[in-house]
């Protein structure tokens, strides 16, 4: 059974149909990426799975349980976390407080444990734990946003544009971390505009085009696919 299974999902904002019948599966332990141009419906798909946006129709099943109509804060409890586009850290709260918010649905003793793991993974966050998040650099904020999402101990971590606005060296670092997290057992659903980076670490990928899936395959297949190269990889 797939960890996450999305079938014939339709989502609209008023009259605008953002997602028009997409279906995909994620197996336990995979890195799956959704790539596509601006407005293809990638972020909408993630926001719908996370319960922030309501779908018009279709099904979303996580561990065999339907997520449609489940409130966003309940979805986090089930083991599914979204690290949102633009990071959206709580800039006036300290790093430690941001992480504490990430573990909001977990017990204090669980959080104490997870916090150690997160600080080991992101030593910079430990150094800056008492600083307000707004004073961090872009890369550090991305690490905080990821660490914060990890605090809920997700089985499936959804990352929306984690490399956005970061220097190339930091992009590499972030992708290394994503691979590491995956090796340690977290299933990853990755949405990226940086398609070549995303495909290079992904087991499988889906290409989204104006609300529907136009192509699917393994990360390597898509990386070498002529259409994909022309459209998204600049060559």
């Amino acid at each position, binding site marked *: 059974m797939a960890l996450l299974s999305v079938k014939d999902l339709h989502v609209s904002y008023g009259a605008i149909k953002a997602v028009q019948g997409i279906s995909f599966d994620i197996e336990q332990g995979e890195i799956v990426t959704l790539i596509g141009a601006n407005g293809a419906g990638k972020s909408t798909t993630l926001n719908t799975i996370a319960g922030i946006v309501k779908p018009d129709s279709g099904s979303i099943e996580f561990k065999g349980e339907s997520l449609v109509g489940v409130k966003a804060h309940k979805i*986090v409890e089930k083991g599914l*976390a979204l690290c949102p586009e633009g990071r*959206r850290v*709580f800039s*006036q709260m300290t790093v430690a*407080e941001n992480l504490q*918010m990430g573990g*909001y*649905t977990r017990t204090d003793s669980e959080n104490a444990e997870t916090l150690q793991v997160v600080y080991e993974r992101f030593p910079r966050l430990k150094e800056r734990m008492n600083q307000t998040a707004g004073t961090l650099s872009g890369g550090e904020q991305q690490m905080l946003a990821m660490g914060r*999402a990890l605090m809920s101990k997700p089985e499936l971590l959804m990352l929306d544009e984690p490399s956005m606005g970061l220097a190339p060296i930091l992009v590499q670092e972030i992708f290394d971390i994503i691979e590491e997290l995956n090796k340690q057992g977290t299933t990853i659903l990755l949405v990226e505009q940086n398609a070549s980076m995303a495909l290079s670490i992904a087991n499988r990928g889906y290409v989204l085009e104006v609300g529907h899936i136009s192509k699917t395959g393994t990360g390597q297949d898509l990386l070498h696919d002529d259409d994909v190269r022309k459209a998204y990889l600049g060559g």
Partner: protein
Amino acid sequence: MTFLTQLLNGLQLGSIYALVALGYTMVYGIILLLNFAHGDIIMVGAYISWIVMAKLGMSPALAVVLSVAGCTLLGVLIDKVAYAPLRNAPRLSILITAIGVSYFLENGAQLVFGADAKVVPAFISTSTIKVGGVSLSLNAIITIIVTAVCTVVLQLLVQKTKLGKAMRAVSEDMGAARLMGINVNTTISFTFALGSALAGIGAVLYSMAYSQATPTMGIMLGTKAFVAAVLGGIGSIPGAVIGGLLVGFAEVFVSALGLSVWKDAVVFLLLIIVLVVKPTGILGRTMNEKV
């Protein structure tokens, strides 16, 4: 009148404004709503005290408990019935709703209790204590101490507790707070409950000072507390207290000079000056537009 007495009066009045301003500032901080019904919650609290003590002849202690509890419930109820359905509506709609709730409470009170003032019995029997030969108003001292304690407790709650941090998270980014697993509606209800409980305490302290309840008493009290919140920087808890005390002192000072007809005008003049010089208020932060 000695200087000390005036100082105490200023602190007493300022403390009441501060308590009410805290409710304004907390609700604004979390859902950017100027809750114009906030002053009227205090009016309801004063009527509860009057009913409990004057009509039912029960103890002042019970009046305090029931006033605070009644205001807390009313605040949460107003949010659930009037504001929660408009959570995603434009801010103007919810603002107009708040004005509607305010009129509803004022006219409802007039319908039920009549337009004349009801006399709220004294909560405490001794009115003054002697400290070093000077007699001081016990009401004033109680008011100041209660306000100080409430402010400290509130600040600790918001800064240190999990729920308080959730309030700050929701106030900064409601969507991101949801993704953390925070139940945004519960958190907003809690904020209304806290702000309204403070209004309940304010109602008791106000009744102690002025001993009467009228259907429209919340208007000027609410407006001045709103001025206090804006003066201090709306959204800021320490700011609300500073603003409240400033407004209280300004009024008492002007009255002491024999210009008491001007005391309301001075408060609003103060507001105009602060808005011209520092529009975000004394402790207000510059708001970053969310992209």
